[in-house]
């Protein structure tokens, strides 16, 4: 008899808990007081280094906007999902954001693969996708509600190709990771490079031993190597193993490797590596953002241009929602027609007709652990280019 009573008590407690759970989630989930915005960014794995950098930029912008009264009186609430820089994880994460959280706007993905995987879902649900850092050329055609605040790799690869040609490096080797982003860079480079591509091989994510690949590369006798990894981690190992192979060759890297803390930690590994990055203006919003960033996190951002891009994307979204309301189509229209020479932390900003960012890129070179713009440096030391 006592046992029966116990069972009944357990059942009652269980039911009460379930009911309370439902009440709790419907109360918090269906709140009218906040503007819910989904975020897709890698928080674990290889790409977490820039995924979490994006997170800090979003949090900074949101805390500022909320402190200033929010959007139309509503605070912005970010719902983070770990998209792992992986198409499959991004699909699940996007579906969760769209169906469970019911968001109308998503910031991200950070990687191109995530963004390309999320786009069909957001397009079908008529949700706006705004990426601060997915740079694959394929995203240009991903949909009418897909926007980004960082220029496509087409520009970067063209700059690298024309710089290499202008310095007489006509035999190129390419090492690229088998991801949407890294392959986008590779293809864009091959399309615009007029020299000979003497070596062009891919490696799978998670690979750590590049030695045989590099020996093979050396046998092809290139003048330059274009390293196109998905994340700084893989790229740094390639640089290390190139250095250990005793090969002396000009190295170019894609924008995934612009990790200032990694470059500062290992200056000799990155010495003279050339990359393309958006240079922030030395005044206005960019300076304010960097000051606020340091005040909030105690250090300067590792990926400066991406941080500015992510920071701007929150402000762009807030401004659009503030003026046309919480409607994805209307916000897309606002982006297309009302954002003209918008003054952002990343510089003067426009969206082109495909929702791609129009911001200027600059070639930078790692010198003693710092990134120096190539043009400026060429002015100071004109011999640099001829000695190559």
């Amino acid at each position, binding site marked *: 008899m006592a046992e029966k009573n116990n069972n009944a008590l357990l059942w009652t407690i269980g039911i009460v808990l379930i009911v309370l759970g439902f009440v709790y989630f419907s109360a918090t989930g269906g709140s009218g007081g906040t503007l819910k915005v989904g975020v897709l960014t890698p928080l674990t794995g290889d790409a977490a280094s820039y995924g979490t950098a994006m997170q800090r930029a979003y949090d900074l912008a949101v805390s500022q906007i909320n402190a200033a009264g929010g959007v139309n009186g509503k605070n912005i609430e970010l719902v983070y999902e770990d998209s792992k820089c992986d198409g499959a994880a991004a699909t699940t994460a996007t579906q969760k954001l769209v169906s469970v959280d019911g968001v109308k706007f998503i910031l991200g993905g950070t990687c191109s693969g995530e963004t390309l995987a999320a786009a069909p879902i957001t397009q079908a649900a008529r949700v706006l996708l705004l990426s601060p850092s997915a740079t694959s050329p394929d995203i240009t055609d991903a949909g009418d509600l897909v926007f980004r605040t960082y220029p496509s790799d087409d520009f970067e690869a063209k700059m690298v190709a024309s710089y290499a040609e202008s310095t007489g490096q006509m035999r190129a080797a390419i090492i690229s990771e*088998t991801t949407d982003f890294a392959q986008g860079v590779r293809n864009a480079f091959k399309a615009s490079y007029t020299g000979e591509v003497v070596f062009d091989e891919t490696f799978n994510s998670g690979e750590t*031993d590049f030695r045989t690949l590099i020996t093979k590369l050396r046998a092809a006798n290139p003048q330059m190597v274009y390293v196109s990894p998905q994340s700084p981690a893989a790229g740094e190992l390639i640089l290390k193993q190139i250095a*250990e192979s005793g090969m002396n060759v000009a190295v170019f890297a894609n924008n995934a490797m612009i990790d200032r803390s990694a470059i500062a930690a290992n200056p000799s590994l990155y010495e003279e590596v050339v990359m393309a990055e958006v240079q922030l203006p030395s005044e206005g919003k960019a300076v304010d953002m960097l000051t606020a960033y340091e005040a909030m996190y105690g250090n300067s951002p590792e990926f400066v241009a991406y941080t500015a891009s992510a920071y701007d994307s929150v402000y762009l979204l807030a401004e659009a929602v503030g003026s046309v309301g919480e409607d994805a189509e209307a916000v897309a229209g606002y982006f297309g027609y009302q954002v003209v020479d918008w003054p952002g932390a990343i510089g003067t900003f426009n969206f082109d007709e495909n929702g791609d960012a129009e911001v200027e890129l600059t070639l930078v070179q790692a010198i003693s652990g710092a990134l120096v713009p190539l043009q400026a440096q060429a002015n100071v030391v004109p011999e640099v280019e001829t000695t190559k």
Partner: protein
Amino acid sequence: MDVFVELVFHGLIAACIYALLASGLVFIYSTTRVFHLAHGGVIALSAYAFWFTTSVLSWNIVLSALMAIVTSTVLGLVMNELVYEPLRRRNSKGLGYLIATIALLMISGALIIAIFGGQNQSLGFSSQVHVIVGAHVTTLQLLLMATTVVIFFLLHLLSTHTRFGKTMRATADNEVVASVLGIDTRQIRRLTFALGSALAGVAAIFYALEFNLDPNMGVMMAIKGFTAAVIGGPGSMTGAIVGSLLLSGVEQASVWYLGSSWRNAMAFTLLFIFLLMKPHGLFGRRFS
């Protein structure tokens, strides 16, 4: 010629890493008959401990290395006492151990993310490059090869020339008879796990210095160690060496002839062929 010598060295370096991964697995399997795949997780956790103590706490590198070995030994012992011994008392069969060890492997990855964060880490270590008969080899890689040879030599001595080795083999052959003869089989298993897991610490140190750390690296290590051990024959130390050489050779050849993206595909093809044609490996004994 130079290129060939270079490739041989690359193969040897990778083989040494695989052999270190496989040595602990084989050592533990040969006594306890547990295919301790969570060994990969133990390596990953101790590699993170090594990174954390050198890079974050700025300990002396020797002290950090000791810390890595202590971490791996303790982890191995804890896994044995809390998971494998209770399973043994319940007379679990192979599948039970397999599920348990895979769970431990997953938990190790989650623990790394919980303790050290989800980011990849790099020690940024580089050592001097030497040119040996035309091939470029670093001091660290030479040390890795020497350490691997010494470890296998010591393991060989241990199992053939010591009383502990004899009791180990007796426990492996027939646990019931061994305990009837007065061998404390539980203690033997405990020591085996301690020693085998200490080897994980050594593998972790070299891996951390040579490559990057990734929270999920344990899974790949378990797979590579497993492959090398199965090819060689899971109970045999000689097998672990030959299996590692064969695995590494096939990988380097597939990178050279087919491209880097084929590396794992060819490694798994090799594993598949062995499981199909020679399931007990090159040097394995048949167990009932």
